[in-house]
Structure formats: structure tokens, C-alpha cells
């Protein structure tokens, strides 16, 4: 945390500034105290000069030195106010969060409103009741700031209140005060540190405002706000008498703001991208241009035809890293194709690339033809129309894939309204029909609902219905059931099968679950490290030849599997895109690897039974005895 704090510029600037302010506060009064307090009426209200850098005020005080000397009082008051805010706010907020539910709701709402009260107004009230002066100012500003501390403390406490160690402490019978001091506070300490610096900045500004209004520090004591008052009074003569303290106030606030931002970044680097860690080491093995080693015969009248698809992202300077490498696939009308692979295999990115949803700075290359339209060759408008009407995607997480602020109806009809030019009434009618088709009861009612009123399974049905609105030829379902319960999973898969059968919609099903894919697809593509390593008919999956596919098969439990026997797990990990090994990407994990596997990448070749497989061992005649190869391997060019 300390390291990342000093790695961001704000943190460095902030800490240097804070140290400077501290030094000036401590030493300035004893060094320049005399200079600042020297009165020289003859020399009053003068502009900046060599002797007086910021000029003088009416009584001839040097403004620059006065500014330095009054830093101490300004900071003392700001720190004092923040101290009060912490002492009052944290027990208030943390205590409120630990109250029983009913009372807590009321307390938190009241807190919300109190925060919305201007701190300055609260401080003015204190000045009105007590005598305007240092004491009332520190107290007033402190109380004004305490509510935001209370808010921070209460939400942090709420967030960790239900964590296990707190419940454990409660079960053991630790008292409320002790619970707060011993268990809650240490866990919220870093957030409170950030809140503290932010609050010091706010205290400086509010306090200056109060003194400026004449309700804070009273003469002869002087803080920056008080100096500003004097400065504004002679603004015509010597504007710098006002600008000097004004800039000092802003700078001090900025310094503490930076310091706090630095702390925040250090405490939570994920939320602050671009704070260091951007220097990708250039050790990546950049792939060459996509090599066309994939002799692929497109299916006549296919609805989807993808050729040599690569997706790459920048890595380091001027380098691009391929994450999907030369994937080709095709899809006949009404066919169901499964793409299986571990996470990181590039299967989801392949789907996003086909739907043209890869975000900048990702770059998609290769040829994608949807329903006879080659997307790279037609204008963008045509791409929109083709994809909008012929292809639909159902995403993994139904909870987050629907817009929470838009009614189901509008989310369903906007696509057809756009691409088919339907009237609103026609579109709503179509939407109702589709919701019926995905077996949602009372479609008219669902249309008027918002996503948060539906369950996860219901939302996935809505998403599928949304995909069907334009009667697409291709439906890509990317892990459509991963986020759902097991019973609901089966229903969603049945639904997809039904749609496939009824509308002759071709389906691309993407999953890490080979069992799911083999039960629901005609054909299976197995992906590993961004490439297709095997393609096989689903009903002949047991004849798969690639060692990786075989390993995946070994990891699928079935009824025949004896419970005493452990499931096979694949040792090692899929390489990430940056460190893909030379040769076959799977060879470090492969039990059958031969020397050649580490040198040359095996091409995807057609074998005798019509599978395609990329493996030197499977495709060679000298397959070692006992290898998991089935069928006769051929080394033909498969053309």
C-alpha cells in the first residue's frame, strides 16, 4: 500500500505539500513573526514590490509574511474541527449502524438529510449562539463535518457488520462498545484515513469562509480567511492582498485533496486504473500474422461463416497480443454448435468478435459472413441491419444484462422498432408473443415490469425473448445458464432446444461444461489458448482424439462413474495469451507430448472419420501404444 501510494503523482505531490504546510505552521511564527506584525501605516495598501512580495495591507503589514505566520492558526483550526468531526461522527455513525433494523433506518435517513445541510450554515448557527470567534468556529465547522464522517462510518460498519468475525464476536458475547473498538474500527481504518484528509481540506475552506464573513477568527488574531476579508476591502487598490490568501486557501485544500486521493488509490488500486502498473513488460511473444493453416470448406448457404478470426489487444508499446488466433467456423441453418474450453480459451471473445462487440483497444481481424453479408465489406449501416436482424446474443449474467432503469417492454421492442420499422403497437404485440414463447406467464404484466422485479431465470427468459424479437438466423448463447440454479439451467436449455427446433434458428452454445455441450449440440468445437484444437460431432465425442478433449471428457462425471474413483483433473494451467508456449500450446500439460510438440504448432487437420484435430500425436501414424487416440489418424492435407 505504501509503495503504490508513492507511485502515483497525486500521492507524491500531496505528501510534499502536507510536509511543507506542516513545516511552515511549526516554524513560521518564530522566524517571521516579527516581520509579519510590524505596523507601518505610511507604507499601507501598497502593491507587490521587492520588499513586500504580495504588498501590504492598510496598516502596512507585509501580506506575504502574514500569510506564512497565520498558517499555524489556520491549520490548528482546521485540524481541531476535523478532530471534533471524528470524535463526534464516528461513534455516531458506527453506533447508528449497529442499532436494531427499525431504528437504524430512521437514524440513517436523518443522517442523510443532515449531511445535506451546508456546513457553513451550521457553523454560522454556532457563531450566532456562542460568541463569534475561534471556539465557536472550530466547534461549528467540526459538527458540520461530523455528519459525513458518521455516514462513512455507518456504511462501512454496515458493510462489515454481517461478516463472519463480527457475528462470531457477537455470539461469544462481546459488548457493543468493545465490538466497535476492537473489531469494527481497525477494519474501516483506511477508509477513515481518506475521509480525514478530505475533511481537513473541507475544514480549511469552510473555516476561511466563516472568518471571511467576520464570524470566525476575530482581530487581532488573523487566519487566511480573515486576511481575505481585509484584502477584499481594498480590492481596487491592491488586489493581491485578496488573491494571496485566496490562493493559499485553494492550494492547501488541493494539497490535502491530493493526499487523500493518493491514499484512496493506494488503498484500492483496482478502482483507480492508470495509477502505475501500466508498464506492461515487453516480454510477450508476439504472434506473427495469422497463418492460414485451416483448410476449411464452407457449408453451402450457411447462416454464419467465420474465417481466420483473430482478436488482439495492445500489450506494451506498439505490440499487440492475439487472444483469439485464427478461428474458423461455420454454421448451417438450424444447426447447433457448441464451443467448449476453459476460461481464457478465447471462446467468449470469439462470440463477442462475431457480434462486433469487442471494445477498443481490441482489434478484430478475419472474415465474418452473417446470412450471406460479409461484414467487413459493407458499410456500417448495413452491418447494423444485418447483425440487428440476423444475429442475437444471449449473455452470461441475466442479472446484469438488462437495464435496471428501463421497462422490459421498451428493452424488448427497441430492436424491432429500429430494424423492422414496426409501429409501437405491433412491436408490443410481438413482444407479448415472444414472452409467451419463452414460457413466461402473463406476458402483458411482465412487459410493464422492471428487471429488478423478476427472478434470475425469468430475466434469462426475457433476454432470450429479446434475442428472438427479430427472428434471427443465429442465436449465440454465451454461458447462458452459468449464473442460474441447476433446476432453472435445465429449463433454459430445453427452451433453447425448443426454439432451435421450432424456428430453425441456428444456435452457438458457449460453455466450459463439456457435458452440457455434448447433450445439447450437433457439433463441438474445442478451444485452447485462443485456437480451435478439435472439431467433432457431438454424438462421436467419445472418439475425440485430442489429448485435451480427452482430458475434458475425463473430467465430466456420468452415471457410470464409480464414486470411489476420483474425477480426472487436468494438471497445470492454461497459459495466458502473453506466455503461450512455442509449438502446441497444450504440450506442457500433455501426457503424450513428443519433442515435436514443443517445436512446431500442429495444424488443424481432417482425419478419416471427418473430425478435425490439431495434434501431432493424433495425426501421426507412429502414435505411441496405449495413447488415447481412437480412429485411424491420417496426415492428409484435408483439402
Amino acid at each position, binding site marked *: 500500500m505504501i509503495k503504490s501510494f508513492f507511485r502515483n503523482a497525486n500521492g507524491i505531490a500531496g505528501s510534499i505539500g502536507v510536509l511543507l504546510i506542516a513545516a511552515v505552521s511549526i516554524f513560521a511564527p518564530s522566524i517571521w513573526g516579527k516581520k509579519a506584525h510590524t505596523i507601518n501605516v505610511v507604507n499601507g495598501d501598497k502593491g507587490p514590490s521587492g520588499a513586500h512580495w504580495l504588498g501590504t495591507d492598510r496598516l502596512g503589514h507585509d501580506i506575504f509574511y502574514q500569510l506564512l505566520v497565520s498558517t499555524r492558526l489556520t491549520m490548528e483550526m482546521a485540524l481541531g474541527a476535523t478532530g471534533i468531526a471524528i470524535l463526534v461522527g464516528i461513534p455516531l455513525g458506527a453506533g447508528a449502524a449497529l442499532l436494531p433494523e427499525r431504528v437504524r433506518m430512521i437514524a440513517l435517513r436523518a443522517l*442523510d*438529510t443532515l449531511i*445535506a*445541510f*451546508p*456546513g*457553513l*450554515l451550521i457553523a*454560522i*448557527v454556532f*457563531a*450566532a449562539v456562542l460568541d*463569534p470567534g475561534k471556539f465557536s468556529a472550530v466547534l461549528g465547522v467540526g459538527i458540520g463535518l461530523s455528519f459525513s464522517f458518521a455516514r462513512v462510518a455507518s456504511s462501512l460498519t454496515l458493510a462489515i457488520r454481517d461478516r463472519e468475525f463480527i457475528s462470531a464476536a457477537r455470539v461469544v458475547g462481546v459488548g457493543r462498545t468493545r465490538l466497535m473498538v476492537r473489531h469494527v474500527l481497525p477494519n474501516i481504518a483506511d477508509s477513515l484515513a481518506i475521509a480525514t484528509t478530505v475533511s481537513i481540506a473541507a475544514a480549511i475552506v*469552510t473555516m*476561511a*469562509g466563516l472568518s*471571511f*464573513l*467576520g*464570524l470566525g477568527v476575530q482581530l487581532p488574531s488573523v487566519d487566511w480567511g480573515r486576511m*481575505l476579508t481585509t484584502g*477584499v476591502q481594498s*480590492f*481596487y487598490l491592491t*488586489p493581491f492582498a485578496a488573491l494571496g490568501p485566496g490562493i493559499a*486557501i*485553494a492550494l492547501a*485544500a*488541493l494539497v490535502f*485533496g*491530493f493526499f487523500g486521493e493518493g491514499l484512496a488509490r493506494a488503498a484500492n488500486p483496482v478502482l483507480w486504473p492508470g495509477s502505475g502498473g501500466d508498464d506492461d513488460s515487453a516480454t510477450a511473444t508476439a504472434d506473427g500474422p495469422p497463418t492460414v493453416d485451416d483448410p476449411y470448406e464452407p457449408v453451402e448457404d450457411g447462416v454464419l461463416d467465420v474465417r481466420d478470426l483473430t482478436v488482439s489487444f495492445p500489450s506494451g508499446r506498439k505490440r499487440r497480443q492475439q487472444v483469439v488466433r485464427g478461428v474458423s467456423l461455420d454454421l448451417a441453418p438450424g444447426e447447433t454448435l457448441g464451443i467448449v474450453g476453459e476460461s481464457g480459451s478465447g471462446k467468449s471473445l470469439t462470440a463477442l468478435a462475431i457480434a462486433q*462487440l469487442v*471494445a*477498443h483497444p481490441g482489434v478484430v481481424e478475419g472474415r465474418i459472413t452473417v446470412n450471406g453479408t460479409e461484414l467487413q465489406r459493407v458499410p456500417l449501416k448495413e452491418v*447494423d*441491419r444485418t447483425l*440487428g436482424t440476423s444475429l442475437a446474443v444471449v*449473455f452470461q449474467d441475466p442479472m*446484469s444484462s*438488462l*437495464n*435496471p*432503469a*428501463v421497462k422490459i417492454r421498451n*428493452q424488448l421492442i*427497441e*430492436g424491432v422498432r*429500429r430494424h423492422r420499422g414496426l409501429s409501437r403497437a405491433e412491436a408490443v404485440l410481438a413482444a407479448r408473443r415472444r414472452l409467451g414463447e419463452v414460457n413466461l*406467464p402473463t406476458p402483458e*404484466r411482465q412487459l410493464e415490469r*422492471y428487471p*429488478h422485479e423478476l*427472478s*434470475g*431465470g425469468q430475466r434469462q427468459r426475457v433476454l432470450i425473448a*429479446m434475442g428472438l424479437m427479430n427472428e434471427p438466423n443465429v442465436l449465440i448463447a454465451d454461458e447462458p445458464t452459468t449464473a442460474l*440454479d441447476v*433446476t*432453472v439451467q435445465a*429449463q433454459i436449455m430445453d427452451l433453447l432446444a425448443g426454439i432451435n427446433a421450432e424456428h430453425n434458428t441456428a444456435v452457438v452454445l458457449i460453455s466450459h461444461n463439456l457435458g452440457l455441450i455434448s447433450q445439447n449440440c450437433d457439433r463441438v468445437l474445442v478451444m485452447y489458448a485462443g485456437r480451435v484444437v478439435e472439431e467433432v460431432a457431438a454424438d462421436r465425442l467419445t472418439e475425440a482424439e485430442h489429448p485435451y478433449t480427452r482430458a475434458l471428457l475425463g473430467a465430466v462425471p456420468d452415471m457410470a462413474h464409480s464414486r470411489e474413483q476420483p474425477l480426472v483433473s487436468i494438471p497445470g494451467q492454461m497459459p495466458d495469451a502473453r506466455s503461450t508456449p512455442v509449438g502446441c500450446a497444450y504440450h506442457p500439460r500433455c501426457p503424450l507430448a513428443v519433442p515435436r510438440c514443443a517445436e512446431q504448432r500442429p495444424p488443424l487437420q481432417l482425419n478419416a472419420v471427418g473430425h478435425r484435430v490439431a495434434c501431432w500425436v493424433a495425426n501421426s501414424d507412429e502414435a505411441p501404444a496405449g495413447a488415447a487416440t481412437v480412429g485411424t489418424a491420417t496426415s492428409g492435407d484435408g483439402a
Partner: protein
Amino acid sequence: MSAMTEVSYSDGAAPSEPLRAPRATNPWVAFVRRRIISVVVILLLLATVTFSLVRLIPGDPGVIIGGTASTRAEQMAIDHRLGVDRPFLTQYWTYWSNLLHGDLGRSFVTNDPVTTILKQNAGASLQVAGLALLLVLAVSIPGGIALGALTRDRRHRHVENWFTGIASVVGAMPELLVATLLAYAFALQLKVFPVGGTGGINFLVLPVLAISLRPIAILLRLVRVETLSALATDYVRTARSKRLPARTLYLRHVLPNVVTAALTIGGLLFADLIAGTVIVETIFARRGLGTTLVNAVLSRDYPVIQGMVLVLGVAVVFANAIVDFLLASLDPRQVSR
């Protein structure tokens, strides 16, 4: 800050997935009832605090307000006018009864009814604060979305760097400094606008700018970040997969979620604007609630102080209530909270 976070939800429904039972009452009715109750409670508290202002003065208010030079008779007269010489409950009762009759007392200094003083000054303050609020919203929301669109997916890094740099400096500048800088540049050097006073539209430009710049910088940053996170959401990806025109994408799918976040801190910004108005009125020597309040505190004119605090407080409470309702109408999930 994001209202977008979802509770993870396990779909433990039976195979038939029964719909949730329809609510017995309209959620809006319950929502409105809850909010009205909380506004009433807070207003009661506010009035009680204002009432207590005088009672909290340590020592004898007559002595403190009248000063040591005043006679005992004068001090007692002050106590009598404040009502602090009567029993506590009587005082509280009288206060409420006067309040409900629209009687806020009379100024010690001018002897004018406080309501008259309010009427004379509220307009000028409302003008500044209202114009500033409009300016802030009109600049920050479209501007922030445009900046978000421009810098999405880490595009235009130089724009992003310049913007965050400038915005964080401006966002840290107190109204005090902005006002003095503006006065220096536009009133003293360029002589485009008057330095101070109350008058036509020319007199409004600098005060309004002075209190708007900081909130604009803060809100622009927030809206940009919210736009970026909205653009990165799954639901915007879903919308993109429908190949909608950019206009629909931004207006329907990004805007509501961005406005929600902007409004959430909008209430706080309004408080900022009110505090800013108080300061700016003093700097630019404008008449208004702020200067009236400050002068009243300095001259210990308690009836006026009470009146101003009450009115400014009510303004904050109502602004927050309005924000709450707007939020709820934009983000339906808020209603059931």
C-alpha cells in the same frame, strides 16, 4: 456511490418459477408516505432547533445582546421580546402558534417584521442560486456524457489527462478564490462586469459563475466516470448487441443511469450552492438572504437569525425531497427501498 450494485441473487424458485405475489399496495404510495413522514419529522426538528437557538445562548440573552452598557430594564425588555422570561413550554407553544400564523417576529435592529425582510431578500438569493443550479446541471450532464463518450475505452488519453487535471484544480477552488479571481479578471482588468452590487443581468454573471465553477468541475468528473462505468455495463453491451443508433443508446440506456448518480450528489451540491450564495453575496456586496443572515449574526438580531436559518433549512430539506422523488422516478429500484 453507484446505485447500480446488485445483490447477488440465487434463483431458488421451484421448477414452475411462480411469479412473486403482486404487492398489496402500490409501492409508490408506500414510498411517498415514507418520504412525507421523514420530511415532516425533519421540519419539526428544524423548527425546534431554530426555536432553541435563543434558549441555547449561555447566560442571560438580555445581558449578552444588550451589552454591559445597557440598563437592567433594557435587558429585561430584550428578554421579554425574545420570550425567554416565560416558562419553557409556554415559549415553545407560542413559537409554534406564531410560526403557523406566519409570524416570525420583528427585527431588533429595524423593527421590521422578519417576513418582510425575508420577502425583500429571498428573490435576489433565489435568482443567484437558481441560475447557478441550472447552469451546473446544463453544463455538467451533457458535458460529462460527451466527455465519457470521447474518452471511453481509454480513447483520447490526452483529453482525459487535461480534463482531470483542470477539473481537480477547479474542483478544489473555494468560492472565495473563484470570486476574487473573477472579480480581478473581469471587473478590475477587463472591466466587462461590475465588481459588485445588485442590479440587472450584468450584476448576476460573476456571482453565478463564482458559485457554479466548482460544482461544475466536480459534477463533470462524476458524470464522466459514471458514463464510463455505464458504457462498460453488461446491459449496455446487450443494448449494443441490438445495433441501436448511438442516440438511442446514450439517451435511453446511459443517461438515466448517469442522471441517477448525478442527482445523488445533486442534493449536496445544492447545499454547496446555498453556502456559496452566502459568501458570494458578501464578496460582491449583493443584497440577499446570506448578507442578511451574516449581518444579523454580527448585530445579534436573533429574530432575523431564526427566520433566515429556518428558511434556508427548509430550502435544503425540500431540495432533497425533490431529488429523492426524481431519483425514484428515474430508478424504479429506489421506490421499494
